[in-house]
Each structure stands twice: as C-alpha cells, then as structure tokens.
C-alpha cells in the first residue's frame, strides 16, 4: 500500500476491516506502529521526502460495506449506503478525493510477485486469470478450511482431494456454491468445472469471493434458499426500493414454504419477484440475492413445488 501510494502520490491510506475481526485489527495496528518505528510511514519516509499515514478503520460488520462506495461512506462516518456512480472513486472517492480501492487478497499477491517475478506468477492457474486463489470451503466435507491453490483448481480436486471428500460416505454431493452465497449453486454434473472467473461464468455462476459451500443430499434446498435470502434481506442497506422491500418479501414467502405453509402459486410468485428485483437495484446486493434464489429454483424447482403441494419437506 505504501508503494502504491508513492506511485500515485497519495498521502493517506486506510485499511478497512470488519469490527468482528479483533485479532486481525490488532495485528494491523501493531504492524503500522512497527512501520512507523522503522520509518516506512510518517513525514519523511526513508529520507525520500514522501509523507504517508495509514489508518486501520474498523467497521461494524455490515455486508454492504463490501461495496466499495458504501465502504467509503462508512469511513467518512455516514450510513453505509452505496453512492451513485459516476463519479467513480478513482475520480472522486474518499472525502471527494481520487481514491484507489483494492482487496486485501489482491494486495497480498504483490510481495510474492516482487520476490518471484511476474513470469512465475503468470504460470499459476489459467492464462486469463493467473495467480493463486484462497478457497474457503465449508459445509459437508471432511476437512473444511482455507486453501490457497492455483486459480482454476476444479471443484472435484478441491472437494475430494484437498478437503478429503464428503463428510459422510453415505450421503453424496447434492450441490455446491462456488463463490459465496450470491453465486448460483451448481450440481454434481458440473463437478469438473475449474474454479476460475471464466469457467464459472460459462456455467452461469461466478467465482465471487471464492467461498465454496458444499451440500450433501440431506440438505433441504428450500431451507438453504430461505437462510441465504434471510441473510440478504437482513443486510439490505435500505437505499433502493427493489432490494429494500423485495428481499424481505422473498424471505417471508420462503419462510412459509419452509414452515409448511406454502400456498399454490408461491413458486411463480418467487420467480416474478426475482424478475422485479434483478437488474433494477442500486448496487449488486439485490442481484446477488436473486441469483442465489434463481440458482436454487433452476436446479431444484420440484423440491420447492413439493413444499407447496405437500406442506412438508421431501428431504429432511
């Protein structure tokens, strides 16, 4: 960050970290102190005359703060709600100043690239999106956790290789979400898809944050959709209408289905509400909620319908 700031002439930089991550924040504070002591930060960095200060800003854990302009609002002390674009942050960002925003994962690649060279980096993963990727695997696998692997590792390799296979031998894979809850889920027939940007996009899903959620055949897809959607409606910032009022509506319908109170026409209602939300929201949060639900409906529509018709779950 200091090098980037030097390159673009920025005198202030911020590291935004969620409020829950106490340990990480403390560690960063320590690191900044050390950098000050060594003269990597401050008025006259290493005698170059370049001045730079770095701050750790601890948010309060709102999901929307992952949206870069909402993050800027949060740092400025306002409600975390996305700003209209243009102007983009590169022109008018934090406090109206030109701002470069990067993910920590991106920045953490830089030392390795400097050390080992660009050629080495390019050789990792597929040609179009080279480099390592941290996959965060959770769900029904033997060894969930964080795996830093070359980009483009297939789902099969990740689940059955690195993670040691499904949790229970008797319960085979039902579906997996390749990149965070907003990515549409994929089924076992797509198990050999390389987990990179282009390959997943071709399958109608996305890499997103690289958080892989693995579900075996004991999972109720309605419940899954309900929990994911409840998250989105809880995290909706309230700025735009379709997301603010649409996602809670979806949640209410899904809750009824899950609780055996489905009504005829509910599945069609969900689909119609998805149409009214998707592409009409201010930021991609509402789109994310819709993509997740649409993914579940695409592959498991009959399971939803079963909840409506029989007022019970076919799985659990």
């Amino acid at each position, binding site marked *: 960050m200091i090098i980037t700031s030097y390159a673009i002439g920025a005198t202030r930089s911020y590291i935004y970290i969620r409020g829950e991550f106490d340990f990480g924040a403390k560690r960063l504070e320590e690191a900044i102190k050390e950098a000050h002591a060594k003269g990597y930060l401050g008025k006259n960095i290493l005698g170059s005359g370049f001045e730079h200060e770095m701050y750790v800003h601890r948010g309060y854990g*709102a999901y929307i703060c992952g949206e870069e302009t909402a993050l800027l609002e949060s740092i400025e002390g306002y*409600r975390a709600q996305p700003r*209209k674009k243009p102007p983009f942050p590169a022109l008018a960002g934090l406090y109206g100043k030109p701002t470069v925003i990067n993910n920590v994962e991106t920045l953490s690649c830089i030392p390795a690239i400097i050390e080992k060279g660009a050629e080495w980096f390019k050789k990792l993963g597929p040609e179009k999106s080279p480099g390592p990727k941290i996959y965060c695997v959770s769900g029904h696998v033997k060894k969930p956790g964080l795996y830093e692997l070359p980009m483009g590792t297939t789902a099969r390799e990740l689940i059955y290789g690195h993670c040691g296979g499904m949790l229970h031998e008797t319960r085979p894979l039902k579906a997996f979400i390749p990149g965070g809850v907003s990515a549409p889920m994929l089924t076992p027939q797509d198990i050999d898809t390389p987990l990179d940007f282009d390959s997943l996009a071709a399958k109608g899903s996305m890499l997103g944050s690289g958080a892989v959620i693995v579900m075996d055949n004991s999972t109720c897809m309605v419940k899954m959709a309900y929990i994911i959607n409840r998250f989105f*409606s*809880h*995290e*909706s*910032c*309230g*700025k*735009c*209408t*379709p997301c*603010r*009022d*649409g*996602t*809670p*509506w979806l949640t*209410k*319908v899904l809750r*009824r289905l899950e609780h055996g109170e489905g*009504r005829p026409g509910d599945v069609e*209602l969900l689909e119609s509400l998805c*149409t*009214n*939300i998707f*592409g*009409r*929201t*201010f930021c991609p949060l509402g789109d994310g909620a819709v993509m997740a639900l649409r993914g579940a409906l695409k592959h498991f529509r009959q399971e939803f319908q079963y909840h409506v018709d029989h007022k019970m779950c076919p799985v659990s």
Partner: protein
Amino acid sequence: MVTVKINGIEVTVEDNTLILDAARQAGIDIPTFCYQADLMGVGSCRMCIVEIEGQKKLQPSCVTPVLHGMAINTETQAVQEARAGVLEFFLANHALDCPVCDKAGECELQDMVYRHGPHKGRHAEPKFKFHEKDYILSPVIVKNSNRCVNCMKCVRVCREVVGANVLGALGRGDHQEATSFARGPLDCDHCGNCIEVCPVGCFMRLPYRYKARPWDLKGADSVCSYCATGCRIVLEERDGVAVRSRAQLGVGINNETLCARGRFGFDYMTSPERITTPLIRKSGGLVPASWEEAFGFIKDAAASIPPDSIGAQPRGLRNEETYTFQKLMREALGSPNIDSSARWAHGAVEAFISAMAMDRGGVSVLDCVKTDTVFVIGAYVSEENPVTDYLIRRYSASRNMNVIVASPRAMKLDSSANLVVRHMPASEGALLEAVLAAMSGQEPDPKALGQAGISADEAKKIAAKLKGSESVGIMAGTDFLRYPSGIGALAKISAALEGLGKKVLRLPLLDRCNQRGAWEMGVHPALGPGYSRRETAGAGTDSMLDAARAGSLKMLYLAGTDLLAMNGDRGIAGEALAKLKLLVVQDMFLTETAKLAHVVLPGAALGEKDGTVTNQEGRVQAVKRLTRPPGKAMADLDIMTMLGSAIATGFPSKIKSASVFDEIRRETGIYETVDLAFNNKKNKGNGHDNKEALVRAAAARLEAKPDFKAAAPAGPDSYPFALVTGNHFFHSGTVSLRSETLAGLAREPVVEIGEEDAGKLGLSGGERVRVRGKNHEATMLLRVRKGTKKGVAFIPENFEGAHANMFFKRGEGIQRVLIERS
C-alpha cells in the same frame, strides 16, 4: 449540446443534462419519487428507470446524464413492468390507511399506483410496522413512518437546503426509518420543509391534522406576509377558514421551501383576537361602533386640526394601499408628514436606498447568489430572511464561490461560509473602512479595527476575497438602518469594487413584507412615488413624535404599525401618543398602540385582499384574496378611501385595486413594465426567476448624503454586554405573536448571548435571567449560542413586556447591559 432520441422524439439539450430533464424538455413525463430539482440526485427509488438502447439493464433517468446519440425509451413494456414492480414493493409494507391519512387525495403514491401500478395486491404476508400510533416530532410536525417510501427527501432538504441537519435514518433495510435522533423531539427551525417535500403522508403538519381533505380546500396564490424575501405561497381555506399555507415546486424564488413563519404563521388571520368592528374612545374606554360613527368621529375631531398629520405604516399593506395612503395624506389632506417606518430615521432610509442602488432597479437574489463572492453584512439572514439563507446555502454547496458572513452574532449560515467575521455591534462602517483600506493596499487603521473588534488579518482576508472576484453580491441588511453610521462605507465599498471593474449586485435584506414597496410608493417624508425627490420634505416619524410632544402636531393616522412597540424610543413615543388630540389606528389587532387610540379601524390580513407587494429584490408579485375579513373589518384600501371621502372633498369613496396599480405604473415609472401575469403560473422548467417582475431603474438617481455620526455607547462601563436587537426567528414585528402556532414555538421574551460569556457567568440556556440596562430592566429566558461575539447580547424586538426599545433612548448609542441570574 447533445442530441438524443427519446421515444423517437429528437431533442437537443445541454451537455450533462439528466435523461429525466431531457425527457421533460421533450414533453415526456417520467414518474419519480426521490428526485427533486435542487436536491442532489440519489437515484434510489428506481421509479424513473428507463430503457437505453444497447444497454442490458434499465437505468435510473434521474442520475444518468445523456450522451450524444443515445436512444431512450420510457414507455416500453419492460419499463412499465419495472414501474409497476417498484410500486408493488412500495405497497408491500405501506400502511394503506388512506382513509385516515391527511395526504390522501394529493398523495404521489396514490397517483402513481393509479397511473402505473399493479391494481391487484400480491403481498399476502404480515406487514412490518414501525409503530402503532403517529408520533409527534415537533410542535408542528407529526409523523407516521408506516407510510414512508424512503425517498429521503426530508433528510436531504434538511441537510442541503435548510442546513438544520436534524433528520437522518435509523435502522437498515426495510426497517430503515427517516426520522429524528432516536425519534426524539426536534429542536430545529420547525420550518416544515420535510413535510412539503414528503410525497406521502409520512411527515405531516400537526396544526393542519384532520382539518380538511385536499378536495375540500380552495386556494389562493399569495405572498408570505412576514419578511421581505417575498416567498410565494398558496393559502388554502375550508369553509371560510384558512387552514394551510404551502409552497409549490417551480413557483417563486422560494420554489418549494418556506420557513416556519411562512408555513405556519398564517393563522393570525383566524385569531380570536382580531378586531371585528370599529372602536371609538368614549368615556375613557374603547367601545364598538359602526363605520359611519367611526368616520363621523374622525371627521368631527379632525375638523379643527390643520393639515399636520402623519402616517407610519408598512406592515401587511399592499402597494395599492400604501400608494393610496400617501395620496390621501398629501393630496386630500395636504399634509407632507408621512413616513413608512416606526423604527428608522427617514434620512437613514434615503441613504440606504442610495447606497444599495435600489433606485437603479430590482436585482434578482438568484443572480446575487450566482456571483463569485456573496458578502452578507448587517443582516441576521438565517433568522430574519430564512429562505434567502436557504438560497445562499444551496448555491454555495454546488458552486465554487465565496460566502463571507460578517455579523456580531453566530448564525446558521456560518457553516456554509468560507469566511466568518465576528464584529462588534454598530461597527459595520468601521469594518468596511478597514476592508477598503486593505483593498487599496494600505494597512487598516487600528482605530477602525479596534472599534469593529476585528483583526487586521480578517479585514485583509475579506479584501482579498472581494478583490479576487469578478462579480460580488453584497447583501446588506437592517442593521445599517439601525446604525446608519455604516451606510457611507457601504456606498464606498460598492463604488470601489465597481471602480476595479467588478460586477456588483446589491441586495437589501429587509425584515418586513413590502417594506421596499412602501418606499417605492413614496411613503417617505422626502420622497414621492418612484424615488422622486419632493420639493419640500415633511416630518419623519421622530420629528412628528417631537412635534406631538410639543403640542404642534395634533393628529396621527397609523395604518398597520405598532408604533409604541417598534419606535426606537418607547418613552418618547408613549409621551407623544398620549398628547395627541386624535390618534387613528388601523390594524388587525388591538396592539399596544391601538389601545391608546381614539378611533380603531379594523383592517384586513394580506390573505383577505387582492393586490401586489414588492419584495426586497424589487420583485412585484400579485396576491389574491382567499377569505373575507372577520366581522365588520374591511380591506384597508376601502377604509382609506371611505375615510378620505368622509374628511376630504373630492376623494373617491371606492377605488378598484387594479386601477390603483395602473396609476402606480404611470406615476412611479419604475413599475411601468412590471409583469404580474407570470407570477401565478407554475413553470415546469424550474426557471423560477422571472426578471420581468423586477422594478426598473428610476429616471433620476437618488442622491443622499450618508454622513451619520455614531452615538457613543450608553450605560455604565461595568455592564459587560452591548445590546443588539432584531427579529426573533419565529417572529416578525408583533403580528406573529397572534399566530397560535408561532406563539407556541416562542412565546416568552429571550436574551441571547455567546457560549463563552454564558460559561463565564455560570449560566446555561433556558435559565431565567435579569437583564439590567440604564433605562430598563426585565426578566427573560436565556438562550446561548455558540460562536456569538464576546460581549454581545441580543433581545428580539417582538415580545410584549420586554420590547427591546424599552432599553433604548433616542440620541444614545448602543446600550450596555448587565445579565445576572434572576
């Protein structure tokens, strides 16, 4: 310029025009909720989304600028479905309690759903409710969040236009609620602009609650009768009772904004204290009489009085009335003694008119705020002319410009200014002299600096900002009339700037409706209509009072003026009025002055007559009659003509207002080309600056000698505060005290000092304190303001029982007072 196609219609618009505005220029209406001209766009409601050919997603037209060659469709099936979808979401958690909602009938949500919406509800889930019952946010605002559409216009108008910044949002997602901090009571300007911009029944007027349905109301275009900003309002009545005043988007310089006085202060019209019948003094008391008796009484009493009468007026009277009044006095009665202000010396008025170039025609406030530097001096603009304050705030936020505020007291506008100078009261002249010296490269005179209580650096900073601008807007207010010693420097600074080749726009900031109109109608001892100089000057207010005390002036005719409460020296005024043989007072209320009268004539409120008024810019605007005056009360013009025909021969007993205005056009010259027609039309282009309504320059320039000596401060040196006066935020003159709503906001006299002084005295706001001066002492509430100059105390001139003029004496300068815990 770029050319775009909207629904197949080609339009050419300025670069960076929003799609929405381009469509409106092409005559295509796009529905909106969160969009409001003059507020920064947010693009959050998604009601205005349109299809741009070649783009996958629908785009919000209220924040998307047009690009050359863009093809936009606003009525495709996808757009229509999206609108209906958005409306369905609005309704999902909406209370749908239209039958008990004040907004029903003029609700934007109702209208939109009717036009674009789903006509069948699909939301069969439990609704989220913020609260069960409406809650009260302020004495004028009641709130129901269950009806909110989250457009956030209330929050934005409060922050961007009013500058009070007391509203925000609580919660997140569908629990997001725009309200005050923790829903607590608001301590704000109570201007109600949040109510006006609310598209639904979420923010509502408390005084108007459950009073009427919109379709029961009959409205009349009018102008606010308090300060001289000249805000356009629509007064509305039900069953002959005025129940609401509101502003309209795109009408007048105020657009949709008003202050508390404009929005809630109209209810003095329906006050039970209105005088409904003429009163005659009989055996010591005032008793009701008929109009014939009253006029007969005046005729008999005036018969033996030589033509030495006066009239002091401007309150609430229209141009037609003031013009007729001076004609009655000068032509029918043959008296040259006529003045328009009970408060200020007529010589100061004349010099101020000249220094502010009011005789050179009207200046639009909207041009004035579009200059490189706006310099506000001698005016407490945030409280005396709130809507002018809104305009400065709004323009300065969106333009690269300087705002300089020079005032002894801190004000809301300080936060929008990039240079704030706190000077001692009555030292505007010294401050300007110091600035003049700095502008010509000299070191400012230490004596002037000491008198103004500013540093050389501050004077130099003002000078640098003025010199660095190509155009300067000087907004000077009534403090120059109170302390005329500064007028000379005011004239000099404009001349100096013009000498440097700068464009100088001068806007007088006045605190009474139609103050300027009265001067232009010739209600001034030395000036006739249209600022023409009279060959022989009559006596001004102060001279008339002196003459009355000496017994040489025997009759006074006061129309709309509370002379006793407003004159600079209450002692002299009281003595003079008591000595009069005949005091005729024409007013709406039995004021302190009216109580001393021999005859009281019940006049009408501004909303009870047709005519025109002129605001501080010189903008002439029409007002229309809404209701009839109560009881036997009459329009003031009718009273004047009837009185005139009763006591003078040849004066017509009835004249039509319109024909008086035709005469005004002819006689004043400056009103000849004034266009009244436009003012009542709502204009869609949002170009609310109609320059044809401004008066034009007088044929001959008014020359006045601005040499006034400042009187030395009076009172013991040990008294630490210099006392200043002006209008209370919620009051203007004494009429506003009869407004139930405004009196409810501020009923008791207050004294205001700076935070530092209060801390030193160990006092805090809300405490009862005793203010002791050389001439008077009184107990009042203390108000503490952060940032006010040390050693400055302010007492508003409005409140009965503690009128500021009790502390003053003519011939004495600024009064020193002592403040102690009572």
